[in-house]
């Protein structure tokens, strides 16, 4: 297994903006790392630089302890799955899967046996002689995975591989990729803008914004202790609510603080208690409702069980659990300690 070390990676284009501003990351051998961030944050550029498809302007990339900045993609022991799969349309599934082996001089019988073995693992064996144009989106996705698996590479890179699939297939493929990672045991770097994919699949998540690495930690740590307002707002669905602490009744900490409240930390209180709000939008997600409420502290989004149904325009009483709130510096957005968390016995709001 192969680890990856990125040291102070910078990328800028001639006559263009700088897209990466000194990203450093140490990925352990066999680890599943998801790089997540909004469009244009530089996550795909970073992945392509690990692959060798883009050159670094500054910094060092080491794979398996070896500097690879000047090494061609074919010599980096990397397999990659592209967003649009990039299957060779003129080749059959068998040829697509075994093409990498052919280029490495593996004999025909051996590479076809390997292609068949991989196809069996991915339930593609009935389609080995078909061309990609005759496959469904999910099958094409599997062929792309098979092509990467056939080579036994030390590192797998995946660039938004599920973004072209429908929701049901995406959920299914998420589980398959996770199972595949456990089975193959290779180091896997996965790029997505979908925070659900990041939280559900990763051993560690790297959150990026505007070419800067915001936080690199386990999903639980990132969810429970986000490093700043951006990370807090980016991960979690529905997104975190941000309110100024001074607008929050019952807040006894500092004043230049922004509080981050996840929707599940705000409950509906008996009428007349807590923060008064008016429901402006109600979304049903199945067992729960997502209520968008206008309050004196700003708009708050909460999740509530359906039996606590409140219609649009109704007034509700909200009780934020301030001991579970995240505190951020209003000026910089950086995480602060929540003074109320030390005093857990103290009720959040009367």
């Amino acid at each position: 297994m192969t680890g990856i070390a990125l040291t102070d990676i910078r990328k800028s284009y001639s006559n263009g903006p700088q897209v990466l501003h000194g990203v450093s990351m140490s990925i352990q051998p066999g680890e599943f790392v998801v790089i997540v961030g909004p469009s244009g944050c530089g996550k795909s550029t970073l992945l392509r630089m690990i692959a060798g498809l883009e050159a670094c302007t500054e910094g060092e990339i080491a794979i398996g302890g070896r500097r690879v900045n000047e090494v061609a993609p074919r010599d980096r022991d990397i397999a990659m799955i592209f967003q649009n799969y990039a299957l060779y349309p003129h080749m059959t599934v068998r040829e697509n899967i075994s093409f990498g082996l052919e280029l490495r001089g593996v004999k025909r019988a051996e590479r076809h046996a390997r292609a068949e073995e991989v196809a069996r693992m991915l339930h593609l064996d009935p389609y080995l002689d078909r061309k990609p144009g005759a496959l469904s989106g999910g099958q094409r996705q599997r062929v792309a995975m098979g092509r990467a698996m056939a080579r036994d590479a030390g590192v797998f890179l995946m660039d938004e591989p599920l973004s072209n699939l429908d929701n049901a297939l995406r959920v299914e493929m998420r589980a398959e990729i996770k199972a595949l990672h456990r089975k193959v045991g290779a180091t896997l770097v996965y790029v997505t803008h979908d925070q659900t994919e990041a939280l559900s699949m990763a051993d560690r998540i790297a959150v990026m914004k505007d070419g800067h690495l915001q936080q690199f930690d386990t999903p639980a740590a990132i969810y429970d202790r986000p490093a700043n307002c951006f990370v807090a707002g980016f991960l979690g669905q529905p997104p975190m609510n941000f309110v100024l602490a001074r607008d929050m009744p019952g807040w006894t900490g500092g004043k230049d603080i922004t509080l981050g409240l996840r929707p599940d930390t705000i409950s509906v209180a008996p009428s007349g208690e807590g923060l008064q709000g008016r429901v402006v939008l109600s979304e049903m997600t199945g067992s729960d409702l997502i209520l968008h409420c206008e309050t004196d502290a700003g708009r708050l989004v909460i999740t509530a069980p359906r039996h606590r149904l409140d219609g649009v325009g109704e007034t509700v009483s909200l009780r934020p659990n301030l001991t579970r709130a995240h505190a951020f510096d209003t000026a910089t957005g950086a995480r602060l300690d929540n003074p109320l968390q030390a005093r857990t016995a103290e009720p959040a709001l009367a």
Partner: protein
Amino acid sequence: MKPEALWSLAALAAGLIFLSPVLYTIWMSFLTVDSYYAGTPVLTLDNYRAALGEFDFLRYLLNSLLVSGVVTLGGLALAVMAAFAFARFTFPGGDFLFAAVVATLMIPSHITLIPNYLTLAKVGLLDSYAGLILPAISNGFAAFFLRQYIRGIPRALDEAAYMDGARPLQVLWRVIVPLARPAILSMGLYIFITEWNNYIWPLVAISDSDLYTLQIGLAKLYRENPGEDVINWPLVMAASTITILPILIGFLAVERHLVRGITMGAVK
């Protein structure tokens, strides 16, 4: 009659009008010279025997096949590699070089006639196959056309091949060329037809009759007129049929790809 049937009939009539000179040429080529002038058709294969045997058209045909074939294959090889480089790589002077290639499309071929003649005379390549082939083998239009086509092939396919372990020439040969086949075939047919019909350059560059191409041989046949007091049109038409036949066969072989090549890029 339904409107579709009317349109079909009109298209058929238009097709026949366009084809009529070719059909008349083929018909005439099977007549004896006496029956042609008498207006009472007597069919014969003698015109073909005479053209291929006595008047050396078999040699001209082989010369034309050799010259056009090498120009087509060599021209395509150069154009495909140049197109791949222009479409996929950034290198110093690349934009200038591509502009220079495009600029060659704006120069009428007759302007290059004398410089080419003087250059080949200086290196002693006049009156040789190389003298017929070399000036035609670099084709700016083919490089430009194929570059545009290759730019339409997703770059991710190249990148996937590089990740699979390919080198640039393997990417070209195993990925780009198969995907650009319609464009390459239609460009190949275009180069072949252009070279096959080339008259001026062989006329200027060749004086040895052993190296004559069909077009030069046809002009010579007409000029020397074996029919004495009347022109032997059936013989000239047999020679013309020999001249156009390979083009017709070639066109029918790659017609499907040619149409795709011409219409490519019209819609996404």
